[in-house]
């Protein structure tokens, strides 16, 4: 058993198993993640999609152990190769943060320190390396040039507010890749940018991912970008993974009613001209008072007499394509 687990971990860069996270709040215990499992294979881009509030950022903050103080990890493990991140000491954590796992945050306007030059910030994160300041600066210049900052050497002295949003996100990418991590996490890296910039940033990420041969966990609302950019897709709903598989599984053979609805609501896929964007009727369940039933039952459009409305087991439809729904088990076309 242990041997087998290790074997499976070896072929993953990161493996999240049965992760459950609660937040203590005034209104009660928010069960933000429940038994979430996600595998990230080497050199693969894994997309994480789902409505706002479904727990995507909580997954990321759990991986980096940056959860707020009111968070409580109830169960589960997060293995980085064969070490459980959840068991690491703060020193061990510091050793992997930014070095083996690095992250690009959503809002480039606030995620860099406003009082320090980007040169300083980019050399500071190389503090582990026993090379001199000049070499660190050079590495920062090379990296900035690589992500498309013109005149990088001069711009080292500049402060974040002197760059546009798109430029700042490029700088954030440069910072994230400078230590050549095994896993790059991007939490909605383009949501704050306009459409043209979005494409540019994604193209940049694509080429850099190939060049640096790292894995990417890509969080996005934008299904079009995910379809275009990712190898694997994980669909989350209200704190649970409801479906996961490779891009073709998710975009052509979606099995969970939520995934299907999500795809129907993607503006890019709507062929007919319409003024009203379709939305999924209903709301995500209250994460404080969860019943034991299926989390999607209130919004499900396919439930019928055959469905027991209880939580369905996660089943593997075809190799690598997992879904959590009673009705999809029969492989029907829903």
């Amino acid at each position: 058993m242990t041997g087998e687990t290790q074997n499976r971990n070896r072929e993953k860069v990161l493996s999240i198993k049965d992760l459950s996270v609660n937040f203590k709040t005034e209104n009660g215990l928010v069960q933000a993640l429940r038994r979430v499992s996600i595998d990230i294979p080497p050199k693969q881009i894994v997309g994480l999609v789902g409505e706002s509030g479904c727990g995507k950022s909580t997954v990321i903050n759990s991986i980096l152990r940056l959860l707020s103080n009111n968070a409580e990890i109830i169960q589960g493990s997060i293995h980085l190769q064969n070490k459980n991140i959840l068991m690491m000491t703060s020193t061990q954590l510091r050793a992997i943060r930014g070095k083996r796992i690095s992250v690009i945050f959503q809002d480039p306007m606030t995620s860099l320190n406003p009082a320090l030059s980007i040169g300083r910030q980019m050399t500071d994160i190389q503090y582990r390396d026993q090379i001199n300041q000049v070499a660190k600066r050079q590495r920062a210049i090379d990296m900035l040039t690589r992500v498309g900052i013109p005149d990088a050497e001069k711009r080292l002295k500049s402060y974040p507010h002197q760059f546009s949003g798109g430029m700042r996100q490029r700088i954030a990418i440069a910072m994230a890749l400078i230590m050549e991590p095994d896993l790059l996490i991007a939490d909605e890296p383009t949501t704050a940018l306009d459409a043209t910039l979005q494409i540019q940033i994604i193209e940049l990420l694509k080429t850099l991912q190939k060049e640096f041969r790292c894995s990417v966990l890509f969080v996005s609302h934008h299904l079009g970008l995910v379809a275009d950019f990712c190898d694997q897709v994980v669909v989350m709903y209200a704190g649970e993974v409801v479906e996961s598989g490779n891009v073709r599984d998710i975009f052509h053979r979606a099995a969970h009613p939520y995934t299907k609805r999500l795809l129907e609501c993607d503006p890019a896929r709507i062929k007919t001209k319409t003024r009203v964007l379709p939305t999924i009727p209903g709301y995500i369940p209250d994460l404080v008072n969860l019943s034991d039933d299926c989390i999607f039952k209130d919004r499900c459009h396919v439930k019928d007499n055959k469905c027991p409305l209880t939580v369905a087991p996660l089943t593997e439809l075809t190799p690598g394509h997992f879904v959590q729904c009673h009705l999809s088990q029969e492989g029907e076309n829903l």
Partner: protein
Amino acid sequence: MTYYLIKRLGVAAITVVIAVSLLYGMIHAVPGDPLSVVLGPRATPEMKAALNKRMGLDKPFVIQLGTFFINVLQGDLGTDVFTDTSVSEIFFGQLPFTVNLIFLAIGWSALLGIPLGCYSAVRRNTLIDKLTGVFSVGTIAIPSFVVALYSLLIFAVWLKWLPAIGAGKEGDFMDQLSHLLLPSFAVGLGWVGYLSRLVRASMLEVLGENHIRTARAFGLKESTIVLGYALRLAILPTVALLGVGIGNMLSGAVFAEIVFARPGVGKLIFDSVITRNYPLVMGSVIMTTILFVLFTTVADLISAFLDPRIRENL
């Protein structure tokens, strides 16, 4: 930064001109005839007229103000009506006593208050944080003259560790320093509380910002994050407060100066107001105003040095 420096100094100069004009006008509008004060109740109208002319009080206000500015620029703040010595000589004779007191008081309270605030923010809601909170509010709540009286009573009268009153022998550094300890303790104690509360609050705010999360996500050491990344921003409100606070204390340290019978600017102004020594009041108040503007300007320059966004927003 050079550009900011020039602009900021320009603003300071304008501020001084406006403030001094207002002050000059105000002092002229105050009831009470300076001539009667100088010449006494039995002065004849002829004597008054002569002095009036000598002091330039017969000319229009604008001319008086203009002459005054020219004189100030030449370092001439007027002449004390009683002793006939120059006001600037008297003022700058007293200034070092006050400046030493203020800087020692602010120095020790900043050295204690700022680290205390940082520590409380980083270890918030621990026992030490709560104790610091109680201590801070306590020191803020006690008026500084009460601290002055009690510290005088305890350390000077009962324990006889430190001298009670005066500023110490001239030229004797150790003696002067020992005379400074109690007053600076009394003046500084409340500042420890203020500073630690202020630093704690702004530190907590900064530590919650996104860029701190980024720094953590890149595995920077907690000490680098707090001291190198957060404090630089969290200290800004404190710098501004200190600029205003030090400026205020130039004349505001008067309590400590009176309780400890020390010479100083506060005492000088207090005495000259009581004796209606107009030129001396005027000259001292104007000098403290100029120094006030100077301290706030320095505070702004420090802020601009710490935060590049300030440099570009003037």
